[in-house]
């Protein structure tokens, strides 16, 4: 893969003896030898570039800052107020940095009779789970068959689905470990909601997979070159949008963290940077949701003119605004209404959509897989 930057090589300064390499037992000497080759160096630099810059840390921090600023300004304007005002250049852009520094200063409290190990493990897990999901999303084509993604596999959609289904366990772990009635109720609600909305999520993905013919996200985007999948499966788009909203628990489907009923759901007892991690993972989830929606239905990086990555970011930006606007337009649904909507309304719609997809592909042969 030709990288836009020059590769560093091991420094052998003339005049000084070459750096003696350590002699290690059998399995490691092969590893050391392999690390000498330029091919490994190239892989290491590229991987660190991906981990630390684009889909990794720097992008997430930047996106979170913009998302926090955008969301709070959007809600403020709808509430006829001003929103963050004093921190940072454009009226409060550095609000997340300010909140982060504040949270870093706060003490991390451990509730008295809570299960210490699992209590402190939960926020770390929820954050890492959200970040891992980013590793499998292809962002833009680099070569003919090459894509800019941390781990390229033909089953990337399946892996993401598997990671999505891991989320309720971490919430139950947090709810159970913090030894508080409200967190227990929040954990049970998390189990209900996330399981209820995984089925429509899968079915709406299924319709896209049928049209694209493969589980690989890159191929799905490639097959949307001339017609975005939102056109044939618009129903699928709606079902997918609503069920991802439930998966990342955004209002109006956020009974997991319903402040008015169960204080803050499974996350009630967390303070300090643990609370920061949980909030951060919420914005990473919004990023994932908008990436997935734009890749599956809005044709990923396809778009006239601009660089493919820019197109993906534009679509993702607009979609994340739509994920966030729910907070100030609809009140929260009750748990039984929410589950009823999940099981009785979304799943039939998704099934209809799958039927349409099958008809389109195999019966009318309109779309060649």
């Amino acid at each position: 893969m030709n990288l836009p930057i020059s590769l560093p090589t091991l420094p052998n300064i003339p005049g000084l003896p070459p750096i003696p390499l350590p002699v290690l037992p059998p399995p490691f000497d092969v590893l050391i030898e392999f690390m000498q080759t330029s091919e490994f160096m190239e892989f290491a630099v590229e991987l660190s570039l991906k981990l630390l810059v684009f889909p990794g840390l720097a992008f997430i921090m930047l996106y979170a800052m913009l998302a926090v600023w955008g969301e709070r300004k959007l809600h403020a304007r709808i509430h006829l107020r001003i929103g963050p005002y004093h921190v940072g250049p454009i009226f409060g852009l550095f609000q997340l940095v300010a909140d982060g520094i504040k949270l870093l200063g706060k003490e991390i409290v451990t509730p008295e009779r809570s299960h210490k190990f699992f209590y402190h493990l939960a926020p770390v897990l929820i954050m890492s789970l959200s970040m891992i999901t980013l590793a499998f999303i292809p962002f833009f084509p680099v070569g003919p068959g090459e894509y800019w993604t941390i781990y390229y596999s033909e089953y990337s959609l399946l892996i993401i689905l598997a990671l999505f289904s891991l989320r309720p366990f971490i919430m139950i772990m947090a709810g159970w470990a913090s030894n508080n009635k409200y967190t227990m109720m929040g954990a049970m609600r998390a189990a209900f909601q996330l399981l209820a909305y995984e089925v429509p999520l899968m079915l709406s993905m299924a319709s896209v997979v049928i049209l694209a013919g493969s589980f690989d996200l890159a191929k799905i985007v490639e097959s949307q070159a001339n017609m975005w999948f939102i056109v044939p499966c618009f129903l699928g788009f709606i079902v997918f949008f609503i069920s991802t909203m439930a998966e990342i628990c955004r209002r109006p489907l956020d009974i997991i963290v319903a402040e008015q009923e169960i204080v803050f759901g499974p996350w009630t007892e967390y303070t300090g940077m643990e609370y920061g991690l949980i909030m951060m993972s919420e914005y990473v989830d919004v990023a994932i949701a908008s990436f997935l929606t734009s890749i599956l239905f809005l044709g990923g990086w396809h778009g006239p003119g601009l660089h493919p990555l820019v197109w993906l970011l534009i679509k993702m930006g607009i979609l994340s605004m739509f994920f966030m606007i729910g907070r100030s337009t609809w009140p929260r649904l009750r748990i039984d209404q929410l589950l009823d909507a999940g099981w009785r309304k979304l799943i039939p719609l998704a099934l209809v959509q799958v039927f349409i997809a099958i008809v389109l592909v195999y019966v009318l042969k309109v779309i060649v897989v």
Partner: protein
Amino acid sequence: MSSYLRPLYMALVHAFKRTFTVKYPFEILQPAERYRGRIKLNMDKCIGCGVCSYICPNRAITLVEHEGRKYPQLDYGRCCFCGFCVEYCPRAALEHTQEYEIAAYTKEELIYSPLKMAEPAKPFDRRIVTVKGLDSKLGPGHG
């Protein structure tokens, strides 16, 4: 279906209306001219009769010696700003100012001695805003 999308339409329409909030420490809202704020004592008019301390519902006013004469001393920890003392004072020695920023760190600081009550009203040194634009399409705002 319309009632799902109507709030979304209303929210987006309101996103472009005028903001209603006041940036309080930097701007201040214009109190009404009849506003019952801090109570100012006019030392020479006061005859020390104690009607104010009798009528005060929360017993906030007590009479205090000062250079041989009795003057009211107001404890803002108890005062409920009902304005009865100003209304029932026979010599109109007490009057309202438009100040309402009289918070203090300790309860003792809240007890205003007659001298402190006699200080003249401080004018507002910040931008004063009033409600305007009630009839405009943009909705009311403070400017």
